[in-house]
């Protein structure tokens, strides 16, 4: 269930969950106090304080829960020594306008892969897309860094995964693409 929350569309619904109560309350309050009953309220200023406390507490608790739930889905958390992740396949790559030089394009399901990337000219991205069109993760590379940018990811389903550059890198940026082949492990 949480798997589908921390996806692109999950993010969109999270925005709706945060915005809808605000919007409904706003429309209700503005309409009520400008059309239906414009007179001052009978609520005393002191009676607002507990409402404000409850409102801020709900917001705070919601923020904390969302961010705690998301920790598990951070790519580097999955690669932490304590996560029990087994042997890792290493794929190194260099991004250069407008192509990738990858050490391997073959991956097996269920085995964690560490992608380590560098750029040799300007900023580039490395976003991996599921065969169904979902984006799984993206990476940002800048030239001249001492370390490569890296992500560990475990593919679950076999198929052809598209790679796209998501950092604008000039007039052929949209054509900067590659492919990874994921096969079932035996």
């Amino acid at each position, binding site marked *: 269930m949480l798997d589908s929350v921390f996806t692109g569309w999950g993010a969109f619904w999270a925005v709706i969950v945060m915005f809808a109560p605000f919007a409904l309350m706003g429309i209700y309050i503005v309409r009520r*106090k400008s059309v239906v009953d414009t007179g001052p309220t009978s609520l005393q200023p002191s009676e607002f304080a507990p409402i404000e406390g409850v409102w801020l507490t709900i917001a705070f608790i919601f923020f904390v829960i969302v961010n705690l739930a998301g920790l598990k889905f951070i790519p580097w958390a999955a690669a932490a020594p304590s996560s029990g992740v087994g042997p890792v396949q290493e794929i190194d790559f260099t991004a250069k306008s407008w192509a990738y030089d990858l050490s391997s394009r073959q991956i097996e399901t269920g085995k964690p892969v560490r992608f380590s990337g560098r750029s040799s000219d300007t900023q580039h991205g490395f976003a991996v897309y599921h065969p169904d069109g979902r984006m799984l993760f993206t990476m940002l590379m800048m030239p001249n860094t001492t370390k490569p940018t890296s992500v560990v990811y475990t593919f679950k389903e076999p198929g052809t995964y598209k790679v796209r550059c998501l950092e604008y890198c000039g007039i052929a940026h949209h054509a900067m693409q590659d492919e990874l082949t994921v096969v079932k492990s035996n």
Partner: protein
Amino acid sequence: MSFATSVVNNTPIFGKMIAVDKSTGLEDINAWPALMIMSSFIWLVVAGVLGLVLPATQIFQAGEDHYYTAMTLHAAALVFPFSVQLMMGVGLHRSGGCVGKAITGWLPAMTWLTMNLGSAILTVAVLMGLKVSLMVMFPLPLVGAQMGVWSMSSVIVGFTGIYLVLASMILFYPMLIIKMMFFGRKRAELVLSERSLNDPGMLGMILSAMVLLLTGLPLVVVGTTLLLALYHILPMSMAAWAADPVVFQYSFFFFAHNLMEAMAIMVASAIYATLPLYLADGSRKLFSDKMANLALWILLVTSITSGLHHFITFYPNQPAALSYWGSIMSWGTGIGAALSIFTVFATIWQHGLKPEVGLIAVLIGWGLYIFDGASAMVTSNIAWAYQLHGTMWQSGHTMTVVLSMAMMWMGILYHHYPVITGRKLDPALGRLYVRLVTVGSIGVASVMLMAGADGMPRRIADWHQEGWMLWGNLFMVFGLILGAAFLVYLYSLMKASEMSATMGRQLARA
């Protein structure tokens, strides 16, 4: 008659929209703001047309060259000479009337000149071939020149333009605000609605001027070094530190992020100042000034370092600790927003509301701003950032934050318009604008977020993959509605009806 007044009053079409009324005796707080507001509307038309050109290049398959040119110019025009300049213009007039100090002399002149000249020079550079997007994507300008994609002279022209725009925002404008707030002679005849610096409506002005000045300084140093090297005044070896992509990007985003936050603080304080003027019981008081100020301080403190969220996917080059920090601070701004929301709602609930069209326009812009805030927090969560960074979600967020703030200033302008021009805006046209802008802005903001959720990359000149053209067509539909809204707004400025100057003055002091 001041220079600014004569430029506005002699400009065809756009000058008519905000021609300065010289009989009010308020030219000293009206002239430069009117010129900035007028100039911002010219850039709005440029940005709006280019915004529609973006989906059009995809629908008509016009090629990547046109797409990347339009993309760079659209965003640059929308953010700097339109949105920032509109904020400067309306905000300056408002603070002039609050503290009774003239907006005259070389500071407003330089603020206006560097903003518009710089934007024009940047436009020339882009037309010369420099297609680097709003974010510059350093070292892309230099790499593109080395690869022969564009000329080195276009890079030099472009950096000159950007530098002037930065000087306007980081140096001249904050200096002008600080000078007005703390120095200079107060003139009783210029005071329209007196406010002290403890007033939430004024505190935001000071905080945001300070934020622009301080967070912009690293970028000014880096930019000056690079520009001197480009002009061969400094040897490249001495500018190498500034040309390091990580140094440039971090100073760039430290400012760019805080520019948005400073504008947000400023517009929040403008709402705190405007809302009480439209309360049904005439009490003219916010629910709580203390809570309002607290929200501004929370926004300020959390926002300064929340910009680290731009580099979450750069791990481990940006250490995890800094990404967690940026993420937590970003969600912390949400606490400031929650407090603000309560203050606004409680104020309306307590005192009732006079739903005049200008105020409704402000509230719609504010609602959109909250919507955008939610999208910004979500994408600052590290797990979500990995799924959304570099997609249309980010373009949607950037556009929405800029658009929502511009919409709030356009609403606030309803309040100040009569005292600047001696004319009154037609409420029927105003209501039409509000309807159109509500549908257009919420529509385009939502579909851009949806496109990002769907994995559609930002800044790519090929939308004909994975069914993304669905989103492209929707951008066009809602973009056209938004364009119609702005045309109605500008038309209502042109068609504003004359009223007596004394009435205008009374309105402003009301």
